[in-house]
């Protein structure tokens, strides 16, 4: 039996790989690692390379990093593009404005999403699944189409204004389109499921006995909510907030379609630099700076998750 197994082709392959220091476990881990390397790290390095180049009227429109001179290869890199981000207040303002819009969108999503997630988590089973499907349902149509639909709702002669005028709540159409309000509506609408789902996953695990114990010890419903429910759902709040905040910072489509000329977001600036100004190096620098900006909240998320792992 032993000889049979040790001489089978699979055993031979496995033992051969083992000699190279690879076992099944390492191979399984290697697949996603290679994926990340090919589809994240290499494009990132390309962008990083462009961000330290100088713009040129050429194709591609930037100076090469490695130059072949008479005395071999040399590297030509500049941090000028990054310095430029600080020189022109446009970029700083765009970053700050993006953070502001992303932050308030996250807060609104949390305020709307928490009660929804709580309600779904407390619903009895068949209803709960139905509600979850309804939350995910919008993903089945194109994101772009849904944002266009909002234009139809919010524009001067749109559905919302027609409705409010008919009711007599307002006398003249509200100007929502091409303002920051429209951007907030768009972002909160788009990313709400990303807030609800992690919150739901957390709240559904909440043990009823804990809420009963709190009531039993004399805490009213509001006190119980703030002392038991909220602290225990903190990991869900953090996860949901990150899932809204991070994509909202770099959002391009929503401010481009719903926002006005005054809506300043880093995604739009990036697009302008890249396609209108054809300044690839500055556009790349903007992108890299944004990435660094986003790594901080991601690190916070990781920290929160590892804390959650501790207490579980």
């Amino acid at each position, binding site marked *: 039996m032993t000889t049979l197994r040790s001489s089978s082709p699979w055993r031979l392959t496995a033992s051969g790989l083992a000699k190279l220091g690879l076992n099944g476990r390492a191979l399984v881990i290697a697949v996603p690692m290679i994926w990340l390397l090919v589809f994240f790290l290499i494009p990132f390095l390309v962008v990083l390379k462009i961000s330290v180049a100088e713009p040129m009227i050429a194709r591609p429109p930037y100076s090469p990093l490695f130059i072949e001179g008479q005395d071999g290869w040399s590297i030509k890199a500049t941090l000028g593009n990054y310095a430029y981000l600080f020189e022109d207040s446009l970029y700083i303002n765009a970053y700050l404005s993006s953070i502001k819009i992303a932050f308030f969108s996250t807060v609104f999503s949390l305020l709307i999403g928490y009660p929804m997630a709580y309600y779904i988590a407390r619903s009895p089973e068949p209803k709960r699944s139905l509600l979850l499907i309804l939350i995910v349902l919008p993903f089945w149509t194109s994101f772009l189409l849904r944002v266009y639909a909002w234009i139809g709702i919010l524009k001067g002669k749109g559905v919302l204004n027609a409705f409010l005028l008919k009711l007599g709540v307002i006398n003249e159409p509200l100007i929502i389109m091409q303002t920051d309000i429209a951007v907030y509506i768009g972002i909160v609408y788009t990313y709400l499921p990303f807030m609800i789902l992690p919150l739901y996953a957390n709240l559904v695990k909440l043990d009823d006995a804990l809420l009963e114990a709190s009531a039993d*010890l004399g805490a009213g419903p509001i006190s119980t909510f703030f002392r038991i429910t909220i602290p225990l759902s903190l990991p869900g709040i953090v996860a949901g907030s990150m899932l809204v905040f991070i994509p909202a910072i770099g959002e391009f489509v929503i401010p481009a379609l719903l926002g006005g000329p005054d809506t300043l977001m880093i995604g739009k600036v990036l697009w302008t630099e890249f396609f209108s100004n054809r300044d690839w190096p500055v556009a790349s620098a903007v992108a890299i700076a944004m990435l660094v900006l986003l790594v901080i909240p991601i690190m916070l998320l990781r920290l929160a998750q590892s804390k959650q792992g501790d207490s579980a």
Partner: protein
Amino acid sequence: MAEPSLAADAKPWRDAAAKPFIRIKNITKKFGDFTAVDDVSLDIYKGELFCLLGGSGCGKSTLLRMLAGFETPTSGTIEIDGQDVASVAAFNRPTNMMFQSYALFPHMSVEKNVAYGLLREGVPKPEAMVRVADMLRLVKLDGFAKRKPHQLSGGQQQRVALARSLIKQPKLLLLDEPLGALDKKLREETQFELIRIQETLGVTFIVVTHDQEEAMTLSTRIGVMNDGKIVQVGEPPQIYEDPCSKYVADFIGSVNMFEGIVDAGVPDTLRIKSLEAGTELLVEPPQGLKIGQPVSVAIRPERIMLTREKPESPNVVYGEVEEVAYLGNVSTYRVKLENGKTLKVTKSNRLHDEEPIMWDEKVYLSWSKAAGIVLTE
């Protein structure tokens, strides 16, 4: 401080004039079509350690949850200390509960868990912390104040849960399967600990359990529940020696049951014809039985004597030992009668000189007239 007078000594339920502390009147609880608790009425006295005993799904936990205020009765009233609590929300009731799962707040330290009730009540923090420290000493957990619940063993968590439910000195403490998650040895220790704490603080305890041994050890009185109804209430010896129905006799301890028909009796003795026993059973006559009435006779295994020689006894049957289990202090026997029925017999192992009865031996089984309990339902 005067010793609190203990219900265990005073036995107020024997006094018809005594005022009950908790008065449950005609309580019914329905979940849809299912009746979890069916027209239960029960009086419980101050300082009692009352056990609600029954199998799973008998309604004992639902009854407890109605006392705590987590469930609203479909009909009926509950009075605690003279106050109708129907409209009182759980967080305003003078009761505290120890949960089966302990329900410790996982994000709070032991100390904060125990202090929770006091702080919600508005007790100033320094005072609360002193009382928490005292309480942790009472449950022998001083030194664990800063730990989180998940850093404690099951037994320690159970004591935190107990401390947390006692800290507000509730008039009534409700315990839902308090010892369920503990191993046998820890459980026995904790049982006596519970009694000690109950007697120290003089709080009224209502304990829900499915474990009849636990109920026997702990309680001043036991209420046996089945199918949402209370089938018998009594002191532990009464429940054991004088069960009111086959269900109770069978549920509490083990029992040998014979079906039979009441035959004529002479004074002091009632004859019951039983095909199952293969003979007539002689018992002390209870009241109100008619000749020809079908009854059951329950005989506890420890009331049956095993002998090799035929003894002088009103009830004697003959059989063969099928199984012997040595349990240390006692041995249990399964003896097959000539008509095929198997009887359980428990024999205490205090005599060393005697040659023990072993497998396949032919033996006589005998019991006194007083051993047979006649049950009509």
